[in-house]
């Protein structure tokens, strides 16, 4: 069964249990798995650890899971767009681990590439380095950072096929390809699902071997955090 098609987001996420660690692709609200987030709100699964560069906004993205108190811990690089997040953090309801964005990306890459740990200079000399092993190479110091161990990875692609091959669009790619490689079970939602064989093999960003479940998403809002325009002169 190379056909990895599932009916919808509800079916894709239904076995995610309380206490699971999940990765969610996206940068800000760009390239986030909207359908799966909505489905997780419906299943009501609790005590999630979410690994995601950002935490959404108050009423969209991971913010929805924060509102329903389904998240125990966020592992992110930047979370500054979310008042409910701030409230839960300050009240101690929510654990937060902040890690440099490149470290986040590379720890995903390490998981996908079967490398147990990587070295990065990011965070040397800062509180990010607290308790971490430091090693010098060629006169420069690096932190040892471990690959993520995530039960699920949930990603959003532009196009996908029934074998799980994925193509991303523009900056909606961001963390999605690395996370797609880094979950024990990887779920992909796509804007356009095509039969296997329709995507150009040279243009596939994530080969299907990394994807366990795929479905055609619906009703994408693709909200924009900061619509910034210029005037026609």
């Amino acid at each position, binding site marked *: 069964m190379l056909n990895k098609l599932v009916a919808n987001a509800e079916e894709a996420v239904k076995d995610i249990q309380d206490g699971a660690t999940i990765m969610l692709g996206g*940068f800000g609200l760009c390239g986030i798995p909207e359908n799966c987030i909505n489905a997780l709100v419906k299943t009501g699964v609790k005590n999630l650890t979410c690994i995601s560069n950002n935490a959404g906004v108050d009423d969209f993205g991971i913010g929805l899971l924060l509102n329903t108190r389904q998240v125990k811990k966020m592992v992110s690089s930047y979370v500054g767009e979310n008042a409910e997040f701030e409230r839960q953090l300050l009240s101690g309801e929510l654990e937060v681990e902040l890690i440099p964005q490149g470290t986040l990306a590379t720890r995903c890459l390490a998981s996908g590439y079967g490398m147990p740990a990587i070295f990065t200079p990011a*965070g040397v*000399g800062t509180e*990010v380095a607290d308790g971490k092993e430091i090693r010098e190479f060629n006169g420069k110091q690096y932190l040892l950072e471990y690959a993520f161990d995530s039960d699920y990875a949930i990603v959003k692609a532009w196009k996908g096929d029934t074998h799980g091959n994925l193509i991303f669009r*523009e900056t909606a790619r961001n963390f999605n390809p690395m996370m797609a490689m880094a979950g024990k079970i990887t779920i992909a939602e796509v804007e356009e699902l095509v039969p296997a064989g329709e995507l150009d093999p040279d243009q596939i960003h994530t080969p299907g071997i990394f994807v366990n479940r795929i479905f055609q998403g619906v009703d994408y809002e693709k909200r*924009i955090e900061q619509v*910034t*325009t*210029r005037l026609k002169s």
Partner: protein
Amino acid sequence: MLDKFGIAKRIAKELKDGYYVNLGIGIPTLVANYVPEGIEVVLQSENGLLGIGPFPFADEVDADLINAGKQTVTTTIGSSFFDSALSFGMIRSGRVDLTVLGAMEVAENGDIANWKIPGKMVKGMGGAMDLVAAAKNIIVAMQHVDKKGNSKLLKRCSLPITGLGCVKKVVTELGVFDIVPEGFQLLERAPGITVEYIREKTEGHLLVVGEIPEMVV
């Protein structure tokens, strides 16, 4: 004294033809508007874009095309998209020639603090720690003093550090400073600003060698 546009304009003079440049949020973003004529630079956005173009016209807005500040942008001729791991790969391996970012504090040894104020909200470091740990050339664009009038050019950072000894140059509304072993070396004064005034507003060691020219912006 410079306004934020003046700071951006002055930093733009540091651009060299063919540079790949990462501009942080705020004043650094404005630098893109003042690229000197006759040179070409490529702006890198750590969320996965080389070749950031201008903001889109209203009918061009594309939710899939944003910069690291989450603003809608466009591409330029020769742009490329890539994932976050490759993006920080090019940063970490020194391919980005210049990084311009804001700061809450800079110390005379080049330490920078710009990601956290203990006890207040923590927004996170985003890509700043990766950038400052890896970039070859880091220029800080910031106000010389905070809202209470305290110097942000310090002997030693009081806030949690973003990176150690990494800042090469600081441009504020008062002047341009190189970080040298002795501290902040004043290179240029902002229009109408005296060396004495700058000295008064600078807590870290200020090095003044010879006559300091007023900058031409």
